[in-house]
């Protein structure tokens, strides 16, 4: 195959010593460590979720001794999953793949890249250490004041403070990472790699980085002010002392809604790399997809108050309209994806199956989200389990499906060996059933009026559906076992991947698997967004 001629002759192995890994500035090792660290936090967050679901299986308190512990479980579950799993996991993929995709030898600032990585376990350890210091934060991942203020019926103790400090650290990591991505993408592209020849994943990381850069410092300011309120007698957010609780909500969601797109755009980018490869067709509507991504990024800044409809303190028609509008570019993307597969030569390898899982599950999450954009509907559904169902369909059905699609797709590039296809498909089936079993019943209990964030419920009509969701959550947990087994087995004895096992067309497949520390010996001519296709077929594209 023509591509082998430009890959380095000998594939380097990833056996460095421990010291080498701890001190590395290589974006590939850093990316892999991002992914490993995020996966560990994914398992921890999953255990916390199992605690939540176990308690809710039956009415009454069985699993936790009091509601405070239950509050800690769901607060820490969400915090770990959002800030220590989804966001860094996607950043890890960006770290590994983006420099390879644009033909760069590394990120623009390798040492700052290492700093971004190591801030994450530091923040995670601080956050989890609160369990040993009198209990974790229990005001929900949103930490609304006055609940999160240091006062009776609020959050006394160190848990909330540690939560604030660790989120500031993780946010700093994100900001530094986003600067690194932007400079890398703008300044380090290979000759011929114009902006409109970049792979879609690089575009989504670009837009995501802009969102992180503009939004994350804003939540840092909110967290700083909350910290001042709690520790230095500040008067920002506690209505009892002249502050405004709605002010916190505004600042918090000004970050946290764009953060929703931080958690999904790179996953969309990964899907957009995978679907064309396994359909043997170029992505349908390349430029439309890029403009849709940019539109989501821009509109993402104008919808934050749809989380606050019921406060009565926001301008409802505007935020409702903008929320409906943001569904339009998402619809454009669905059109792109489906048209990419249309009349393609589909092969159903594991990455493709997870990508299809993403499409179907994210569609449900998108539709039930757009539903709640309607103000009267939202008033009825606010803070019910409907919201929990929606956010898990987009975050688990969307982001997590995308993450596993990416893991199966790029694992051969990272380690030189294929993951096992059968185990991958077994994992998919168990996970797909588990996720629908867990999250679909939440729609129904939500419509029936079950509020979120309660440890106990008296309504017997909710029991069966809750039990079903609990069974589903354990099914999801089981689905992790074939994956972990798969990774350990395949690292030692998986099929040798070769440079380009999927016959993909982006630059990362032009080098060896795993790539050498400097990434490329030679780059092919880049004359389209599919340089390896041009190379294989001996002609240049448009």
């Amino acid at each position, binding site marked *: 195959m023509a591509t082998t001629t430009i890959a380095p002759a000998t594939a380097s192995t990833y056996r460095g010593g421990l010291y080498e890994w701890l001190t590395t500035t290589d974006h590939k090792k850093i990316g892999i460590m991002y992914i490993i660290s995020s996966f560990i936090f994914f398992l921890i967050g999953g255990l916390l979720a199992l605690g939540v679901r176990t308690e809710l299986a039956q009415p009454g308190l069985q699993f936790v001794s009091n509601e405070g512990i239950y509050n800690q479980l769901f607060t820490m579950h969400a915090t770990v999953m959002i800030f220590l799993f989804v966001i860094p996991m996607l950043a890890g993929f960006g770290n590994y793949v983006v420099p390879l995709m644009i033909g760069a*030898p590394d990120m623009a600032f390798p040492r700052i890249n290492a700093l971004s990585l190591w801030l994450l376990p530091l923040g995670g350890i601080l956050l989890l250490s609160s369990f040993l210091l009198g209990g974790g934060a229990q005001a929900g991942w949103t930490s609304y004041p006055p609940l999160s203020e240091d006062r009776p019926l609020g959050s006394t103790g160190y848990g909330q403070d540690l939560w604030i400090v660790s989120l500031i650290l993780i946010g700093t990591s994100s900001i530094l990472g986003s600067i690194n991505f932007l400079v890398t993408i703008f300044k380090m592209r290979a*000759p011929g790699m114009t902006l409109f020849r970049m792979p879609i994943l690089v575009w989504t990381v670009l837009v995501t980085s802009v969102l992180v850069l*503009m939004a994350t410092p*804003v939540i840092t300011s909110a967290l700083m002010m909350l910290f001042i309120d709690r520790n230095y007698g*500040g008067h920002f957010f506690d209505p009892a002392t002249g502050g*405004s609780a709605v*002010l916190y909500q505004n600042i918090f969601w000004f970050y946290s809604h764009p953060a929703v797109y931080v958690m999904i755009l790179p996953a969309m980018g990964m899907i957009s790399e995978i679907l064309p490869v396994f359909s043997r067709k170029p992505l349908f509507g390349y430029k439309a997809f890029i403009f849709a991504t940019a539109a989501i990024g821009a509109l993402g800044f104008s919808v934050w108050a749809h989380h606050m409809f019921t406060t009565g303190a926001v301008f409802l028609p505007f935020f409702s309209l903008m929320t409906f509008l943001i569904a339009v570019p998402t619809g454009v993307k669905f059109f792109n994806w489906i048209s990419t597969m249309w009349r393609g030569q589909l092969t159903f390898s594991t990455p493709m199956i997870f990508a299809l899982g993403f499409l179907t599950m994210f569609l449900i999450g998108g539709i039930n989200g757009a539903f709640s954009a309607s103000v009267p509907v939202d008033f009825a559904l606010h803070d019910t389990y409907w919201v929990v169902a929606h956010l898990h369909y987009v975050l688990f059905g969307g982001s997590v499906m995308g993450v596993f699609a990416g893991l199966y797709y790029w694992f051969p590039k990272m380690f030189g060996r294929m993951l096992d296809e059968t185990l991958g498909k077994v994992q998919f089936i168990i996970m797909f059933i588990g996720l629908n079993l867990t999250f679909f019943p939440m729609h129904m209990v939500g419509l029936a009026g079950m509020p979120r964030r309660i440890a106990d419920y008296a309504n017997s009509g909710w029991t069966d559906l809750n039990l079903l969701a609990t069974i589903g959550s354990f099914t999801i947990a089981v689905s992790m076992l074939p994956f972990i087994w798969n990774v350990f087995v395949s690292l030692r004895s998986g099929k040798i991947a070769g440079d380009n096992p999927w016959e993909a067309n982006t630059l990362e497949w032009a080098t060896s698997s795993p790539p050498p520390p400097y990434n490329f010996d030679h780059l092919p001519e880049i004359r389209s967004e599919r340089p390896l296709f041009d190379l294989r077929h001996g002609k240049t594209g448009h």
Partner: protein
Amino acid sequence: MTADSHALTTTGHGPAAGADHGPATAGHESRGGISNPILGMLLFITSEVMFFAGLFGAYFSTRAAHSPWPPDKFAGTLNPLGLILIATIILVISSVTCQLAVNAIRRGDRKAFMRNITVTFILGIVFLIMQMYDYSVLFGEGLTMDAGPFGTTYFTLTGFHGAHVFGGVIMLGVVLYRGTAGQFSARHHDAVEAASLYWHFVDVVWIILFSVLYLLP
């Protein structure tokens, strides 16, 4: 700027060269366009702008919810014609000397560069000392962090600005130290440019803070 990079120049570098620094990290080699460190600093400043936007948003929201502002107890406590005016002038002058230092190193005039960067560094420290003294005066008049929303917003905004001045002084200190070690030339002085951009940003934030906290009726 768009298509060029130096990825191809890595061909032939051994793993050792690539693993540690990445040969492409030195922005000077970029053909044309802004250098990597300066673009990085501009993006960092963008994030800082958003951080202060959050604080200013909280300030104006709090201010709008309380009347009168300042509360009667603190009417006239923040006097724009007092010590703070001198501190403001000092910070503005330091921005000018900082720019003079940058202009000097662009010409390759290391002597003028060192003189101006030293003056900037000292003026930054003087500003911080004056701010601390001003805080002690305000504490004496009963204006503290926990003295209602007025005190909280005042000390949070000026405090975070002071922390940023402190960060800027450290950057200037590093530039100064590297300068005494004989570094920087007309071609290689990204650190000077980056530190100066940050210093100007800190200065602009202060001018806005001064206008909002002291001058806005």
